[in-house]
């Protein structure tokens, strides 16, 4: 963690966001801290460089041609009737077409490779089992449920370094979008549906997480901190939360779900086992309907039930 000059403002901002400390994003275009964000950024840079082959000539040629053929420059040729050249025609259609063809192949392969629903680390024998986290978007805060550890946190996400994380997202209000710029791109969270996002932190550190989909006056304050810690620290943290965290039952959840920006992050050592399922099911008319929609949606991705 970089507790340097940013420490002061982090404390100040904490009161407005209700966080212990907001990590600064100091460096511009800060480096990725995980494989997903790294691959996405690499793709961004590659495509941008490739596009320069079309863009730079325009930026150079436009002023140059305009100036070279200015009216006062009588030394340059004037062909008022010239309006077609087969060679140029092939070039100006061909070069962009080739670029797009190349990019199209990249889009096809990379969209699949970086599909947020695609398990990372799959097939690696050495990899630890992925950590499942259920995410609930609320107004204006994020609730994270660790189903296997039976704990939950509000506005803090603690992750073990080097282990794949499988997020299952829903919303108990309007549409929201979860983004941790240094770990992975975003995915929407929508009521009554479950979306997924895989990510992994490859280095310890504190990273900003946020909602990017406007959802009312507390929107800008809907931030949280991702703490990536090593496996030992993660397990100790689980134990600590279990020991001294609050109880998250239906009543407490109703309080959390009310509109508002929380004063501070919270930790829950006991969580109702099917809380996440009930939040999703709330938006489906009856248990019967729910079963049938879940079944039909198991094939569709956006809503596939966990």
């Amino acid at each position, binding site marked *: 963690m970089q507790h340097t000059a940013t420490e002061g403002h982090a404390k100040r901002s904490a009161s407005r966001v209700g966080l212990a400390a907001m990590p600064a994003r100091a460096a511009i275009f800060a480096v990725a801290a995980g494989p997903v964000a790294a691959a996405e950024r690499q793709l961004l840079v590659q495509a941008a460089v490739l596009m320069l082959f079309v*863009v730079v000539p325009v930026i150079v040629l436009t002023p140059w041609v305009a100036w070279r053929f200015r009216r006062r420059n009588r030394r340059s040729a004037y062909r008022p009737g010239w*309006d077609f050249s087969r060679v140029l025609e092939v070039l100006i259609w061909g070069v962009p077409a080739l670029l797009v063809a190349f990019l199209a192949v990249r889009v096809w392969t990379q969209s699949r490779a970086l599909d947020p629903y695609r398990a990372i680390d799959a097939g690696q024998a050495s990899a630890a089992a992925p950590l499942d986290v259920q995410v609930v978007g609320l107004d204006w805060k994020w609730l994270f449920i660790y189903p296997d550890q039976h704990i939950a946190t509000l506005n803090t996400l603690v992750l073990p370094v080097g282990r794949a994380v499988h997020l299952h997202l829903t919303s108990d209000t309007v549409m929201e979008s979860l983004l941790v710029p240094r770990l992975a791109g975003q995915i929407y969270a929508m009521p009554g549906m479950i979306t997924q996002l895989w990510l992994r932190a490859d280095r310890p550190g504190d990273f900003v997480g946020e909602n990017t989909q406007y959802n009312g*006056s507390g929107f800008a304050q809907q931030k949280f901190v991702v703490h990536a810690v090593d496996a030992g620290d993660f397990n100790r943290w689980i134990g600590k939360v279990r020991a001294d965290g609050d109880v998250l039952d239906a009543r407490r959840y109703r309080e959390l779900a009310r509109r508002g920006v929380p004063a501070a992050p919270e930790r829950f050592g006991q969580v109702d086992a099917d809380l996440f399922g009930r939040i999703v099911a709330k938006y489906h008319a009856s248990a019967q309907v729910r079963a049938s929609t879940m079944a039909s949606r198991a094939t569709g991705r956006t809503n596939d039930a966990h």
Partner: protein
Amino acid sequence: MRIEALAGPWLGRLSLSALPTDSPVAMGAALVAVLGVLGVAGYITGKGKWRYLWREWFTSVDHKRIGIMYVVLALVMLARAVIEALVMRLQQADAVNRSGFISAEHFGQLFSTHGSIMIFFMAMPFLTGVINYVMPLQIGARDVSFPVLNSISLMLTAAGAALVMISLVLAPFSTGGWSGYAPFTELRFSPGVGVDYWIWAVTLSSIGSTLTGINFAVTIYKKRAPGMHLFRMPLFCWTALCTSILMIFAMPALTVATALLALDRYLGMHFFTSGGGGNMMVYANLFWLFGHPEVYIVVLPSFGVFSELFSTFSAKKLYGYTSLVLATMTIAVLSFTVWLHHFFTMGQSANINAAFGIATMLIGIPTGVKVYDWILTMFRGRVRFTTPLLWGLAFLVTFVIGGLSGILLAIPPVDFLVHNTTFLVAHFHNMLIPGTLFGMIAAYQFWFPKAFGFRLEERWGRVAFGCWVIGFYLAFMPLYVLGLEGMPRRSAEVFDEAFRPWLLVAAGGAVLIVLGMAALAMQLAMSIRHRDRNRVRAGDPWDGRSLEWSTSSPPPEYNFAKLPAVQGRDAFWTMKRSGRAYPPLERYAPIMLPENSAIGPLLGALGLATAFGLVWRIGWMAGLGTAGVLVAVIGWSFVRRPGRTVDERQVERTETRWHAVLVAAVPVSREHECDPRNRGLADVAA
């Protein structure tokens, strides 16, 4: 309190608490709006001009007058939306680790009105106005196919704009953004009247635009002068045609989306609600099924304008005419195949995302072709750096940067990173400001002398140009950086000290853009004051190439005493070079023109009343408004309107007067294009 209680049943939910008294900034804005309206109304009353305005303008069905009214509406709304942009930029620069000078709620209204106005009440009226004015003249027609419908479209759009202006005083407006995403805009999450303002303002404008699209397309198909084949049309007419087709097919999707949202809100239905069987994803699909073609609706006419500019100010044929037509058509068709790229992040399969990403990139090909066609148009030409051309050059250089970021956003995994951030905001402003606004401002500078008979001052035009272009780069390049860092768009507050310098630069850019607006106003004022110096009544100040320049400036109400016979592209340019540009006086035939009609303003007023009644749940007003619309439309269809004849003597008088101007004018070489010697008669010998 008692007054409000009494008023209750008559005024629905409306009460004094609608005044935005809680915020000094909002109150100030409301005050400026009210004083502005009172000031203008007072001035008109003082000058005794109401009758003149009603007879000559509001009830006019002349495409030229309607075009001018559209552009005036666009400029007024542009002024408001630019100021809102400045307030938002100042807020973000101020609100780093503190709450800033306006509330989050107010900030939400600002980005919603800014976006809605810029698209529906700035870009759309601007391009509709320019097409209205120019297209019939370019194809050698006397008016559009349905002149009265044209007036109705204008008045419906104006009613929508008026509703947005009213929301400044009787607040609040929606905080749902210009796209109004459900379920945030559903009653459960946005219980106030704000979303209703948005729904009805947008609905009025979308109906107006659908009718406009039909009107323009039919005009281009049916009203071209003899010999004006489709492939002889100036490129601007081609882009007008493509835009019209897009309007016809895209606008109804929006009308349906807002109508279904209204059913949810007013009648408790569940199209887009969370729960109750609703599906919010359907809203996103419907909205962008309109929203993406909309991008091309607002950008294509500018492409047409630039095609005219580069050719005219290079004194050279447009390079690759056929290529440009094909590219325009390709863009129009492809624009319906890419809407999903607005929500790559909604969780559909990678294959679907990839397909839409590739479709999006395909649009880059014809767009790239266009850019190179324009550069090649200048190649081996004789380029004159007039103000309209400067906007064109700035457009080329700036637009390709937006194209680059557009290609990046079309790659789904890249989009995951920067979607919903200021990178996206930078991207679409990078397309729409050069692509739409620069084109429209250039069009305004280029055709102003045609419409009013005098040129705009070059010097203030250049000042405005400098402010806008530099302001644009300062305001939006930092947003790319901030977006890459993950700063969400629509943030009323910012929590990262490192963002502050970038936000300050962006705010500085916004200040420059506002100065650019002021310079445009100054240019207009100075040009009116010195109009005698800049008169170009002979009609052809730029050595123009298409038929609109073959008329006097301003053109007579019937446009052409005799419909021109067209023998090829660049019709007027060829006529000038072969000495057939100004046919001698002869015997004229009487000309039939449509009569003025009050049905347009009437429907606009009734539409506004209906919408206002619906917003505030004032049943009688909404009911009477709706009934009024029905009665007016049905009643009007029974009225026989034979039209009005301009008799041959009157035509002859007008034409004789113009010929006197032509004879008196000294042909001017391009050397003196921008000085008082230019009286609108081009010297074609050189």
